[in-house]
């Protein structure tokens, strides 16, 4: 087995086993996986050359759906929460998507931001329904009807999330290699030709957009359940910015990078927040600039370069294409 494949499997094993050695890491990793799913949604859109500054909207839609379900049924059921949260985020994705896929680049990014700001202010203003700025508690749900203790639930949530992430990552990877996934990518390079193949660029982008909203929704439900509380902050623009940041950090366009980025980001945030709380966004901002200007393929790009050096060979044209960053300059 080549090193290039062995290392990711090893990393996955370390993530799976880490909580056994260091119990504190379990919650952090669960949160990181939840964010990683949402980041995957951003990564997907980057393949079409689009950046959304408002995807926290779908994260929050799903999280609040789970919270409402829990409130309505005194605790609720995890599977139902996931189904409802996913359904709600897909529905919102379709509604918002029908509008925003008419636009590209600046308008696309900013209209997404506008929609998320609208939702944020609704969450804050209609406090009699949403609990306002204090948000809503999410009680620990049952899992397929079984009530669980806290420790057992957290362990289950972590391993459940891990399996879900691996499965979803595989699906997205296959989607991106499929005919429709490749058409989705051509929105970045040549929409005119796509239309002249008889394919609607808007509908193609809409498919990807709805999927990306669903990914954010899955992440939102997991986050809500893991944290036990949802607040309007879930929909805030800083959350959206964070998702975009992690996508770029991991390696824009890389499915694995979404999760690697999320785990590293979350680990650093948890440990650095204590002494950098006031300047956290500033740190992120400088990092983002540094990555864009000096390492535009992110962590995954650095990994590939390291592997190339270890295997002592130059990338062929096909490989550079596989590792190509949607964000990279032409």
């Amino acid at each position: 087995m080549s090193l290039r494949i062995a290392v990711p499997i090893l990393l996955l094993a370390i993530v799976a086993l880490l909580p056994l050695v260091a119990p504190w890491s379990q919650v952090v990793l669960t949160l990181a996986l939840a964010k990683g799913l949402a980041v995957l949604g951003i990564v997907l859109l980057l393949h079409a050359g689009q950046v959304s500054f408002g995807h926290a909207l779908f994260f929050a839609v799903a999280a609040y759906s789970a919270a409402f379900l829990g409130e309505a049924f005194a605790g609720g059921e995890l599977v139902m929460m996931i189904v409802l949260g996913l359904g709600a985020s897909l529905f919102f994705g379709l509604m918002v998507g029908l509008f925003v896929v008419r636009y590209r680049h600046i308008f696309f990014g900013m209209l997404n931001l506008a929609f998320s700001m609208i939702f944020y202010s609704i969450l804050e203003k209609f406090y009699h329904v949403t609990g306002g700025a204090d948000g809503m508690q999410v009680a620990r749900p049952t899992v397929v009807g079984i009530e669980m203790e806290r420790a057992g639930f957290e362990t289950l949530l972590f391993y459940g999330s891990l399996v879900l992430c691996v499965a979803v990552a595989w699906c997205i990877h296959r989607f991106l290699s499929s005919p429709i996934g490749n058409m989705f990518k051509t929105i970045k390079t040549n929409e005119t030709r796509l239309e002249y193949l008889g394919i609607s660029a808007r509908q193609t982008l809409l498919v990807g957009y709805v999927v990306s909203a669903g990914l954010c929704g899955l992440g939102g439900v997991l986050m809500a359940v893991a944290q036990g509380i949802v607040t309007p902050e879930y929909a805030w623009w800083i959350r959206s910015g964070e998702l975009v940041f992690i996508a770029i950090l991991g390696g824009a366009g890389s499915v694995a990078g979404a999760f690697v980025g999320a785990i590293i980001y979350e680990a650093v945030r948890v440990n650095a927040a204590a002494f950098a709380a006031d300047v956290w966004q500033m740190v992120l901002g400088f990092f983002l600039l540094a990555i864009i200007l000096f390492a535009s393929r992110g962590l995954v790009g650095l990994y590939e370069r390291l592997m190339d050096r270890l295997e002592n060979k130059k990338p062929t044209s096909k490989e550079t294409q596989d590792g190509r960053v949607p964000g990279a300059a032409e």
Partner: protein
Amino acid sequence: MTPDVLLETKGLEINFGGVIAADNVSVEIHAGKNLAIIGPNGAGKTTFLNICTGYTKPNKGSVYFCGREVTQKSPRQITRMGVARAFQIPQLFSEHTALENLLIAAAAREQRWAPFMKLGHIPERDEMMHLLELVNCAHVSDRLVNELPEGQRKLIDIAVALALRPKLLLLDEPTSGVASSEKFGVMDILTRALAEAKVTSVFVEHDMGIVEKYADEVAVWAAGAVQLRGTPQEVLEHPDVIRDVIGEEL
């Protein structure tokens, strides 16, 4: 309307900020007869192709394809009906390989939406490889198209259009950007491919040698209107054409 009329325009008119790009253009394109469009720059040749494919909507007039009006339809809808187009500046997917460009076109033609099928595994793969061979680009099938020279990009652009199995192919200056020594080679490849696929073509061309050799009919464009139409011999020997069009080329 005779049954062999593939595309017909009636009284097309359009102007861009006062510049007339189409002035009462009525043209019939017959199945099986390759039509060359010649004329000076700015005569409205590309605009004509744009109107025929729905990219530009005329101020007046209408376009019919196989007897159905398509004037207000989008490029997407007209493409679906069987009109494909190759461009003056090749319109390719720059981050895909040459073969992938064709495979995407084939997947679009066959409506392959299965989300877990790999693009490289669709049943049309062999057909697309054959098409690449036909345009002499099989050896660069796994190269990114933006790494290829302009001449090959033009051929791949044409192959992408052919991959759609159109009834009618509109080619905008297929040999521009191709070295003059290679122009005839490109056209030989192209006519062979067109004949094999039984596609009728309309091509905008500046090189009269090419027009003479490959066109069945020639239409002369000037100031947004068709000035003259006939066989290559009739047209190229016409004194006006020698003065206005060929003269400019020299």
